[in-house]
Structures are given as structure tokens and as C-alpha cells.
């Protein structure tokens, strides 16, 4: 951002460098770091959902563990009174206004957590494998369908997981845990490239 007073530019640094093996586009896929995004934690009493939805024009999912995906904007319902909104920067100002209005009208909590989390896209046929290297959830499509989201764990990190497509997951993690998480992804992909676990012995 550029300062009016000083004219000096402050640069953004998300603090993660992905290993080439993750970013190389291969047929089995890999991991991308998502550029800076806008994130809000939105909290209100579940009984207000219809009213808040109307007032905010936000597509708030009705069930815990479900999400809405519209353009560059995701809304995840993580708990009974908790929604996470993630959007690309183009909507930053509009969202700021929306939430200012919302805060004045409803009993709720809006907290900007844009820089608290980093987002990764884990994609490709190998995506489930990368995630199941550290995440204990059953990620098969019939158990964890497209649109499902949840907070969970990946080894020693807490993550938020959203399935955007059969072979595409959005992973949110707190900033300082991101390098550890991406190193874990890296090991998973490296090992996968080296071995075929469960493969039949060629005679």
C-alpha cells in the first residue's frame, strides 16, 4: 500500500516459499499458495441467519460444514455461530462497507483476519493423498463432497479444509504454521514420487 504522507510503499510478504516439487504442474497435481486475500470472521446467533443473509446479501450456508462458492468469494460455516468469509482483494472495500452496516444493525462480531491465515490450493489426482498424509479425515468424495468444509488438523497444525472440486481443496492455516504445513506437503509429494505405496510387486 502507498502512504499519502510519505509516498513510501510497504510490500506484502506472506512468508512462505513453496518447494518447486509442489508448484511444478504435473499430471498428478501439487500445491499453490494463494495470493493475499480478504478474510473476515463473522459471528452471530444462528437464529439471526435469515436476517443477516438478507441484510448482507452474503450467501451464508445454513449448515455447519457447508460452504458457498461464488466467483472469488467463499463463505464457510465452521460452527453454530461462526462463518468465515474469504474473498479476493477486489471486493475488499465493498465488504468493509457491508460489514460496517451489518455491525451497526445486528448483534454480531466482525473481525478482520485477512493476514492471520494463508490459503493453499491442493489440487490434482494426488490431492487427497497429500492431505491424508497428515489429516485424519476420510476425504473420499462420498464422505467429503464438493462444498464441504471444516476445521480439522494436519499433524501438528490446525487447518480449515474446503473441497472446491473433486480434485481441488482450499486449505487455510494460521500464518506461522504455514511453512511447516508446506514442508509436510513437500515431503508427501516427494515420497509419493519415489514410491508407489501399495503397488504390486512386478515379477
Amino acid at each position: 500500500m502507498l502512504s499519502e504522507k510519505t509516498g513510501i510503499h510497504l510490500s506484502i510478504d506472506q512468508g512462505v516459499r513453496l518447494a518447486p516439487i509442489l508448484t511444478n504442474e504435473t499430471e498428478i497435481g501439487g500445491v499453490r499458495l494463494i495470493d493475499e486475500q480478504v478474510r473476515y470472521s463473522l459471528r452471530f446467533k444462528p437464529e439471526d441467519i435469515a436476517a443477516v443473509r438478507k441484510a448482507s446479501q452474503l450467501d451464508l450456508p445454513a449448515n455447519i460444514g457447508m460452504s458457498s462458492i461464488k466467483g472469488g468469494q467463499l463463505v464457510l460455516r465452521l460452527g453454530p455461530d461462526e462463518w468465515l468469509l474469504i474473498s479476493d482483494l477486489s471486493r475488499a472495500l465493498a465488504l468493509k462497507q457491508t460489514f460496517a452496516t451489518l455491525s451497526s444493525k445486528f448483534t454480531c462480531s466482525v473481525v478482520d483476519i485477512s493476514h492471520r491465515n494463508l490459503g493453499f490450493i491442493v489440487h490434482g489426482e494426488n490431492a487427497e493423498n497429500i492431505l491424508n498424509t497428515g489429516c485424519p479425515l476420510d476425504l473420499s468424495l462420498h464422505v467429503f463432497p464438493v462444498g464441504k468444509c471444516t476445521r480439522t488438523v494436519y499433524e501438528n497444525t490446525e487447518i480449515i479444509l474446503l473441497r472446491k472440486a473433486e480434485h481441488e481443496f482450499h486449505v487455510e492455516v494460521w500464518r506461522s504454521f504455514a511453512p511447516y504445513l508446506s514442508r509436510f506437503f513437500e515431503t508427501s509429494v516427494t515420497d509419493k514420487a519415489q514410491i508407489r505405496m501399495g503397488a504390486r510387486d512386478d515379477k
Partner: protein
Amino acid sequence: MLLIKCPYCEEERPEIEFSYAGEAHIVRPTDPSKMDDTAWAEYLFIRDNTRGVHYERWYHIHGCARFFNAVRDTISDKFIMTYKMGLPRPADVEIAKVKE
């Protein structure tokens, strides 16, 4: 690793998403200043440590982030039921029914 059904997520989830949070249905007195030292100590420190059916609290800390209650058999380690915070302690008959 146990599977625990979170009553808010309405799903069975792996134990490592949860954190144990002590015995359930111990209500903080509304006016602690009115209590004598013995009664306060009772509230603060004394727990049942039941062998068998135990009422306890769990925290879905790496999930929906809600505290909830559970009935668990401390001998078999099996969860008999889980229920939302604020709901009354299930009666013995309800527990027996679920156990069936």
C-alpha cells in the same frame, strides 16, 4: 484413536480434533461470595472419578470449537452418547436405552 460424535457437527470425528475438558454438570455458583470455604472447595476441587458411566465435557477445539457433554463408560472407553451444552443430564433409562 477414538471416534467422537460432535453433537453440533453431527458427525463422528477423530479424537485428535478434540480436547477433554473434565467432568460435566458442575455448575459455577451464581454467587460465589455467598458460599462458605467448604462448599467452594467442593465446587472447585472435588470430582467423582467414576468407574463406569461418566458424564464429561469435551471441546471440539479443532472443529466447530464448541464445548459439549458426553456420557462415556470409563471401563470400556466407549462413548454412550454426546449432547449439546445446556441440555440436562440424561436419565439412567435413556442411557440404558442407547446402550441396548
